[in-house]
């Protein structure tokens, strides 16, 4: 598949959050402010790109040659957990300001289903190394996009008069539903 199409597909048409429901927890939790949404989005995009590369290598150079595909889930989740730790330590060393912005979001990423979902999808769809990298960047961009749009809407929502039971998660879900509906309009793009 054409790499550009793959990118557009992962970022917009088959948006991870709005069509595959991956990464909903941070989508609800970290979408109150645009600034924190941007930081979270970038952190996820960063980890996704590295995860895409590392899990591809592990699957195709380790699990497949030794016929231990059954360890796929165990090894993927361990890799993601350790990667997140490494990335956290690395950022802390390299750039203090970057760590201050991304730091608190990194531990949350381990249990972000979008990361594991990405690794699983690229195995399932038999992507090549390049394809799975592009898929990782695209999915991360799509996640950031959905998160930032949501945060923008929620900042406005704070000023509006919402029935009390719907405040917080309820209205977020309903807005997400409308967003998902809008994103369905992109379906013919690829």
């Amino acid at each position: 598949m054409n790499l550009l199409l793959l990118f557009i597909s992962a970022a917009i048409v088959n948006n991870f959050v709005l069509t595959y429901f991956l990464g909903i927890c941070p989508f609800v939790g970290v979408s109150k402010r645009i600034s924190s949404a941007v930081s979270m989005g970038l952190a996820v995009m960063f980890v996704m790109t590295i995860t895409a590369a590392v899990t591809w290598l592990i699957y195709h150079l380790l699990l497949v040659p030794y016929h231990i595909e059954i360890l796929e889930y165990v090894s993927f989740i361990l890799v993601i957990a350790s990667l997140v730790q490494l990335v956290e330590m690395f950022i802390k060393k390299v750039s203090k300001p970057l760590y201050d912005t991304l730091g608190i979001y990194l531990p949350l990423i381990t249990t972000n289903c979008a990361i594991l979902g990405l690794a699983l999808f690229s195995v399932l769809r038999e992507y090549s190394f390049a394809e799975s990298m592009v898929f990782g960047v695209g999915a991360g961009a799509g996640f950031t996009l959905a998160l930032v749009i949501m945060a923008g809407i929620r900042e406005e929502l704070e000023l509006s008069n919402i029935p009390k039971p719907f405040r917080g998660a309820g209205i977020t879900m309903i807005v997400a539903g409308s967003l998902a509906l809008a994103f369905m309009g992109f379906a013919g793009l690829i």
Partner: protein
Amino acid sequence: MNKTAKMVIVLTVITALSGAILSTWDGVTKPKIEYHKLQALKAAISDVLPPYDNYEEKDINGYKVYIGKIDGSTQPVGIAFKVEGSGFQGNISIMVGVDPSFTSITGIKVLEQIETPGLGTKIVEDPSNKSNIFWFPEQFTDVVIEPEIVVLKNKIPQKPNEVQAISGATISSKAVVRILNDNIQNLKESYKSVN
């Protein structure tokens, strides 16, 4: 005991146990899973080919080709193969059967698709058409491939190489036809040069 050593030992033991349990479980479930896969493949092949006794598997030009044969006859009854391409929202994969001379289709079966439910999914089955929910894929049976299959919008097909598009899902219908046209032509040349 040293704290770090304990951490390492406990984690190693847990992981080793997990590996042992899973490889045993793999031995139990793998034959079953392989069996289901083979059954699904056989079902798809027999859906798209005329009745046959057995089939021969061949790799031609990157396609896995299944050639249906009747015992005692050298002439195959039809050739089945899996084709793929992008649809409205994602990949569509189809098992298609053609006659040995590559002139007409003996049947198609959509194996995987993620088209819009209720519209594009009618390429598999159409619950709104109570008399025949499989009308879209069934149209392709006996459709002539030469020079290529043509999709008609809101018109009843007249010529042997025409099929009717699903109303409301023109792009999905066209995608199916495009995938078929491209891949059948592709395989036709290489199949003829092999045989």
